[in-house]
């Protein structure tokens, strides 16, 4: 027994000792890219290391985004953050306030080529990564909400993807089927009972969550109320939609719902498991056409004994990842949005879009992209608004009262920011 333990210990020691080379600059990169997306990322990192033999990128999958934030907060608090990590915009608000991340504009200003690169990046990403005229983080795995539908069910009814909200409602109605006992066996639409579905409808109704400087809630105004009322009606009045707290893939795959909203990279996971042809279309238009952006950006963390070499190596990596060639590889491998315009002209990308034309829908939608709030309390606000949605759906509260209650809680948080 003793010998076995000793053996195991030495084996484990060997494992941890492997791959450590003293000469190389080691960068730790915390990400939330699970299998199989992590394989694309690791492949790119391998290429980077081949071209930059003095740098070693230690990519670590730390868990999903919730866990990533927890670990980032804990590690920043304890004074040993990673060198780079994926971050959402509202996390950046926290981090920049405490000066625990370094603004990427520090390098952008010094770097001559970067002007050209910057002009090539979709403006919505630049804007969303900028705070007080400074660009703090760099767009990384960006996605956008699109409309997914079951093409064979649509075909059976002679329907096309709805372009407007009235069309959306009539489509849902036609695709909702009941059996002889009156039990619904197929719904026109399905959603997860959280803030996301509310956000999508709110934006297309020209609504916003907060006022312009993001100091006060406005999602409980008339637009917000009508939006929530519409979602409640879909479920309770028209009875054409279904909601769950779980993931939607299985329900969609089993034909329990004919359509749902999700982000564009979902396509690459969804499609292979389906027994029917998948349809992807842009979101139906409300008062305006609007599609929310999702996904994270890369931040460089400040460290106690940081060196110029470390910081410029971080930048080098970010810049390398966003080069046309690598951005194309990333976008093709994961179905995330390319972040720069010229990526669309690359022959590889054109080839890919020919093979996977569904990936084009999200790219087209970039023209009408909207972004989520960046307030520090967004994590908390999301939960309160999700609760309001749930209350209204369960009939425990009117949409107006539910939203007012959430707004009151959130305004109290905003007052402290």
């Amino acid at each position, binding site marked *: 027994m003793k010998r076995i333990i000793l053996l195991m210990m030495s084996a484990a020691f060997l494992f941890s000792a492997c791959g450590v080379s003293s000469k190389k600059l080691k960068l730790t990169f915390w990400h939330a890219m699970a299998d199989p997306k992590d394989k694309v990322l690791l492949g790119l990192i391998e290429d980077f290391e081949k071209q930059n033999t003095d740098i070693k990128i230690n990519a670590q999958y730390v868990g999903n985004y*919730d866990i990533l934030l*927890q670990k980032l*907060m*804990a590690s*920043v*608090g304890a004074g040993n953050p990673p060198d780079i990590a994926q971050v959402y915009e509202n996390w950046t608000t*926290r*981090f920049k306030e*405490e000066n*625990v991340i370094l603004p990427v504009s520090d390098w952008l200003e010094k770097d001559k080529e970067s002007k050209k690169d910057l002009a090539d990046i979709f403006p919505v990403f630049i804007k969303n990564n900028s705070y007080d005229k400074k660009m703090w983080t760099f767009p990384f795995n960006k996605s956008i909400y699109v409309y997914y539908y079951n093409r064979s069910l649509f075909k059976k009814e002679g329907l096309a993807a709805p372009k407007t909200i009235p069309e959306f409602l009539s489509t849902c109605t036609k695709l909702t089927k009941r059996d002889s006992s009156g039990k619904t066996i197929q719904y026109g639409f399905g959603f997860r*009972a959280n803030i996301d579905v509310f956000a999508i409808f709110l934006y297309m109704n020209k609504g916003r969550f907060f006022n312009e400087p993001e100091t006060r809630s406005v999602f409980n105004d008339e637009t917000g109320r009508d939006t929530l009322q519409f979602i409640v009606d879909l479920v309770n009045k028209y009875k054409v939609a279904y*909601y*769950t*707290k*779980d993931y939607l893939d*299985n*329900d969609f795959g*089993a034909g*329990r719902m004919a359509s749902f909203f999700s982000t564009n990279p979902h396509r690459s996971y969804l499609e292979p498991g389906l027994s029917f042809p998948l349809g992807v279309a842009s979101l139906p238009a409300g008062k305006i056409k609007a599609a929310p952006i999702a996904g994270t950006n890369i931040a460089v963390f400040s460290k106690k004994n940081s060196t110029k070499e470390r910081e410029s190596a971080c930048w080098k990596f970010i810049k390398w990842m966003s080069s046309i060639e690598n951005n194309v590889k990333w976008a093709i491998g994961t179905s995330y949005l390319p972040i720069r315009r010229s990526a669309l002209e690359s022959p590889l990308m054109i080839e890919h879009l020919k093979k996977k034309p569904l990936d084009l829908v999200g790219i087209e939608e970039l023209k009408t992209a909207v972004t989520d709030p960046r307030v520090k*309390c967004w*994590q*908390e606000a999301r*939960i309160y608004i*999700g*609760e309001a949605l*749930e*209350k209204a759906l*369960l009939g*425990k509260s009117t949409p107006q009262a539910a939203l007012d209650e959430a707004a009151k809680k959130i305004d109290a948080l905003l007052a402290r920011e």
Partner: protein
Amino acid sequence: MKKNENILAYAFIFPAALVIIVFHIFPTLYSWYISLFDWDLISKTKEFVGLANYSKLFSDPDFLKSLLNTVYFAAGTIPLSIVIAFTVAYGLSRKIKGLSFFRTVYFLPVVTSVNAVAMIWLWIYHPDAGILNWFLGLFGVSPHKWLLDPVLAMPAVILMSIWKSLGYNIIIFLVGILSIPGEYYEAAQIDGASGFQIFRHITLPLVMPAIFFVSLVSLIGSFQTFTQIYMLTPEGGPLKSTMVIVYYLYQNAFVFFKVGYASAISFIIFLIIFTLTLLQNRFWGEKIDYEN
């Protein structure tokens, strides 16, 4: 000699004490200290707020709800689990064949990780594709949305928790029942006692200490319940119907990053468990002495 024994005792306790002090007691005290501050984990300055976090707690409807939910959880889990476990243990004590098979199967949920088995229960409770609704449907019961329903979510979590910890309780009871000397039963039979009378007057009283132990451990466990809530009902269930106190602590500390506030909750949890332990000790302690 006496002095020598003192030193020796300390030496024996030292390794355990070192770890407990450094990694359990000190962090606990530190978290109580933090409960006097407003802190988000990363800001360099912690703002001293005195007892403000505590006074806020008692006017926080979510906190009060989480307390009530915890009591609901404990009341739903403990008595039922004790009755079922006791019944099964009583059955297992009747000199039956295949005892080790039964012991293994009933104990299986205890040794498996909550994270893994919670995934299975998500499927059991699935409104359309789940086996529970399918099974109930065989008897003409219309399907329920279990974990999505604010009324049914907590019973669903309770059911899973009973399943998970049943085996542990069975073993404790089985041991209690098996260790009752056979002469007691023989004497009772000679006196012409019925099966139920024997159970009522011999088995039950003599297993009381085990019931005490199980209820105490379960009570402490109830006030520490977290993982199954987190796995089965993310965000604390529909309309916070399954938000127990440790979940609320977790949410404040690791989702909202209100570390001071979360620490205040942790102190309250400790106070509650501590008081319950004392109370239960007093109430049951006397009873057990009397029975013995």
